[in-house]
């Protein structure tokens, strides 16, 4: 599987027939849509958003794709399609949404759609050339969701970058993420404030070309 995928990636690079397809993955509320919006604002359109950002978990319940974004970093160029995916979770409970003022009916609908969203996110993985795995730097990174997705990305041979997001917050500890996954590339950013995004773009141009 890994070898076959590697050959396909190599062929695509040689033929340059299409854009590099990058998926944004991570747990709910890690900042995936904020990151996708930031990339679009920086390189495509400052007024356009790929999705709505909300403090209520599972705001993104369908995968959204934005095509033809030309990322430039220190002279390197990379034309990508960005796919913002729903958050990966091991348990989705409508009770968690009630605290945000949703009615029981709305909360149950949200939980159902969020569960469908997890399946959709996983299906997209077969069609991607690279992944930005977003983690909330204020949270413990050693979760089942993070471990399962990293294991699968490794097994499928999909290149990925761990984005330690929300470093603008006081209790952010990106070093904890680096310690948890020392064998992988970790780039600390604040997608909301735009901090250290240049470094992320450089890394994307290097790893996903």
């Amino acid at each position, binding site marked *: 599987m890994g070898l076959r995928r590697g050959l396909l990636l190599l062929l695509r690079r040689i033929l340059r027939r299409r854009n590099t397809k990058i998926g944004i993955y991570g747990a709910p509320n890690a900042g995936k849509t904020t990151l996708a919006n930031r990339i679009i604002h920086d390189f495509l359109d400052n007024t356009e958003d790929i999705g709505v950002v909300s403090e209520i978990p599972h705001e993104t319940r369908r995968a959204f794709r934005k095509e033809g974004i030309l990322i430039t970093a220190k002279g390197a160029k990379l034309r990508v399609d960005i796919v913002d995916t729903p958050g990966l979770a*091991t*348990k989705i409970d409508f009770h968690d949404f009630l605290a945000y003022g949703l009615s029981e009916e709305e*909360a149950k609908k949200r*939980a159902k759609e969020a569960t469908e969203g997890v399946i959709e996110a996983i299906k997209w993985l077969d069609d991607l050339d690279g992944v930005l795995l977003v983690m909330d730097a204020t949270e413990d990174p050693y979760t089942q969701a993070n471990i*399962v997705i990293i294991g699968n990305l490794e097994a499928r041979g999909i290149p990925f970058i761990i984005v330690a997001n929300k470093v603008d917050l006081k209790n952010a500890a990106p070093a904890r993420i680096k310690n948890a996954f020392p064998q992988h590339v970790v780039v600390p950013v604040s997608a909301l404030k735009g901090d250290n995004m240049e470094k992320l773009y450089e890394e994307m141009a290097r790893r996903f070309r």
Partner: protein
Amino acid sequence: MPHKCTRCGKVFEELSDDMLKGCPACGNKLFFYMRSAAAEELAGRIRVEGIEEVEDVGADAENASQTMQMPQLDIESIRILKPGVYVLNLEALFSKEEIIMGIKEDGSYVIHLPSLFKTKRKRKKEK
């Protein structure tokens, strides 16, 4: 990146070529990678105090006991505990195309046939 000898416990703050030949103190060639001080402290407490006592040490233990309450997933990709409460088996969702749903905790299962047939068609095509 600190490392610790698994035999004598000597701590090495930096990796060095000498470590490739073994621990300078005892010759052992296995080393732990040491994580943050907080994680180390928690690991130490688990070893010293035992699991029953660790359950009382605060938020970490509370999270752990909540995890224990999650139903053990087996063949199913998703377990529907009640309307609006779902437990997802991410490993199964990643590794299998077919979707098997577990209903509540009474051993009932629903097999989503379209996903199963799709997998078989795909396999046939690959042949």
